[in-house]
């Protein structure tokens, strides 16, 4: 008889996400992040139930709060942290930052700073997989705020119409910046919206990664067979919207209550209760994660920033005409020789 050790592995990933995000906060406090637009996914780690239900070769896009999703799909925290610090060794050579992290190799088609912006890309990916018969699935991760963006419904409709291998995952953390979701949505039963466009819909409990994993697995299987789906996962955004936001629009009580819905703690209790790990073993996981992320943080801090003229690279493909730097143009116009 084999024990299912997957919950253990999922716990480890969740803890690593939590530790990573804490270090991102530290990076900011140390003045080493590229900007303050850092959106921590603390409280939303049950998303690992989805990333774990995906397979190798599956692809995804995320919103601005996507560090956890990316780690769930195998990101190297050091390269992530370097990118968040705007360093040359980051995933995007220091050009994208936290909100535009991506990895072609890991199927991350891009984090997006436009609410809803990355959603239709999974429809396109789904088209590719359908046309090629590769049985890959593409998953869009986004927040409750994106539920009010028109493009979501265009994308849902197309996915349903064309029966594409696509999954839409709404990480409903109850807030879009300072706006609680009931102040932004005319009706909160988001699953019904998805169903009315022809998708299979399910609900995930953001405190329970195993429940999320169960429903996500079903939806992913369905999507792979051409039945696109929608999953809403309820959670609570533990901290402010971005690093500068102290959430004055929420009461301390609300925050305290919300933070009780801690998916990481709950997963930890569960693996111990189910005998998958002892308290000590769990603590070892926690310590390992902390050390790993400390190292990622330090390596990002010491990494080199990109060389100035790399800014002209990657606008277009190598070997095609690149933008001409201002200074070169001005010099050509104004130098004595040119005149």
């Amino acid at each position, binding site marked *: 008889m084999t024990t299912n050790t997957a919950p253990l592995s999922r716990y480890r990933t969740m803890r690593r996400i939590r530790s990573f995000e804490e270090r991102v906060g530290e990076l900011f406090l140390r003045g080493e992040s590229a900007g303050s637009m850092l959106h921590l996914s603390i409280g939303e780690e049950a998303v690992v139930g989805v990333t774990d239900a995906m397979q190798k070769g599956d692809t995804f896009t995320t919103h601005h709060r996507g560090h956890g999703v990316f780690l769930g799909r195998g990101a190297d925290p050091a390269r992530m942290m370097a990118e968040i610090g705007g360093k040359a060794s980051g995933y995007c050579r220091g050009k994208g930052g936290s909100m535009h992290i991506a990895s072609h190799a890991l199927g991350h088609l891009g984090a997006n700073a*436009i609410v809803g912006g990355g959603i239709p890309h999974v429809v396109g990916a789904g088209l590719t997989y359908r046309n090629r018969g590769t049985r890959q699935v593409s998953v869009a991760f986004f927040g409750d705020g994106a539920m009010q963006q028109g493009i979501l419904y265009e994308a849902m409709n197309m996915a349903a119409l064309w029966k594409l291998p696509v999954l839409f995952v709404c990480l409903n953390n109850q807030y879009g910046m300072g706006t609680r979701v009931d102040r932004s949505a005319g009706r909160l039963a988001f699953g019904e919206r998805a169903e009315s466009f022809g998708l299979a819909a399910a609900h995930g409990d953001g405190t329970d990664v195993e429940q999320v994993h169960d429903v996500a697995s079903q939806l992913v299987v369905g999507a792979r067979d051409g039945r696109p789906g929608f999953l809403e996962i309820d959670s609570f955004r533990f901290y402010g919207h971005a690093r500068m936001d102290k959430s004055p629009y929420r009461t301390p009580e609300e925050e305290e209550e919300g933070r009780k819905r801690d998916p990481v703690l709950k997963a930890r209790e569960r693996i111990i209760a189910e005998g998958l790990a002892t308290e000590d073993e769990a603590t070892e996981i926690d310590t390992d994660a902390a050390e790993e992320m400390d190292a990622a943080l330090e390596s990002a801090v010491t990494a080199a920033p990109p060389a100035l003229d790399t800014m002209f690279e990657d606008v277009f493909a190598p070997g095609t005409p690149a933008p001409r730097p201002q200074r070169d143009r001005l010099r050509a116009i104004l130098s004595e020789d040119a005149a």
Partner: protein
Amino acid sequence: MSAIETTYRDAIRQALLDAMEEDENVILIGEEVGLYGGAYGVTKGLIDLYSANRVIDAPISEAGIVGTAVGAAMTGLRPVAELMYVDFIGLVMDQLANQAAKSRYMFGGQIAVPMVLRTQGGTGRSAAAQHSQSLEAWMLHTPGLRLAMPATVNDAYHLLRDALRQPDPVVFIEHKGLYTMKGTLDPETPDAGWGTPVIRRDGKDLTIVTYSRMLHEAMRAADTMAEAGIDAEVIDLRCLNPLDEAAIFASVQRTGRAMIVTEAATAGSAASEIAARIGESCFDWLEEPVVRIGGEDIPIPVSPSLEKGSIPSAQLIAEAGLWLMRKETPAWA
């Protein structure tokens, strides 16, 4: 394959057909591109040849269509998304400018978006303010996008073939007034390379720089000017990005005079951009100011006479040419 007489519309169709034949990753996606065959008939019959998986009739969801093309391009297809009218581009500018154009950059070179957005613009059908615009200036101001606007049958074919070989997103803007225009298509021989302007008429007195349908007005204007003893050179930009400026500058440095003609509303147009560049790089050669001749800075009115009057005519161009040469205003002006 030898040269044939055909139309601008069929040249585009042929380019799509040849590209689809060569590369099964090429797909078409857009409203009415399939069964209907395209609002202007460009894609007629392609769905029968290549199935609904490759010629995809999309719902009226422009942003979704372009976003879908972006995702398809990221994952290995070569989508040609069709926007029925360039006027609808306001619905897709986020997907085009923030997503398609910036992905390679934001993601540090990892993710390419080799897609073509085919669309058409311009006046001539009394289609009014929301179906007659020339909005290429928005794309010209978007780093990461390429932009081609064919004026001839041969270019309609070759520039689209070229666009479909680009590793980056290309906006390809046809002109609704040119679809039925006849001309020679030589599938073996492009008029010039991608990004290279073509001198459509040699001349020594002044240079007219233009593109898309205005090329034909400019050519007519040059004929008129010739009657008044003015020898105008006419340059067709073909691609607005990339753009090898050298040919333009060389011409202006020879003639000392330049007029930039566009159908778009003049303020903030591509004509302003070209005029600025010529002003910067040809200053010491200029005999006269570089002038822009563009569409009026108004929405396009539906009434046929007003519509026609709102964009440059061969007559206005010729008249300006005469003024530029310091000739008397002619009797016909």
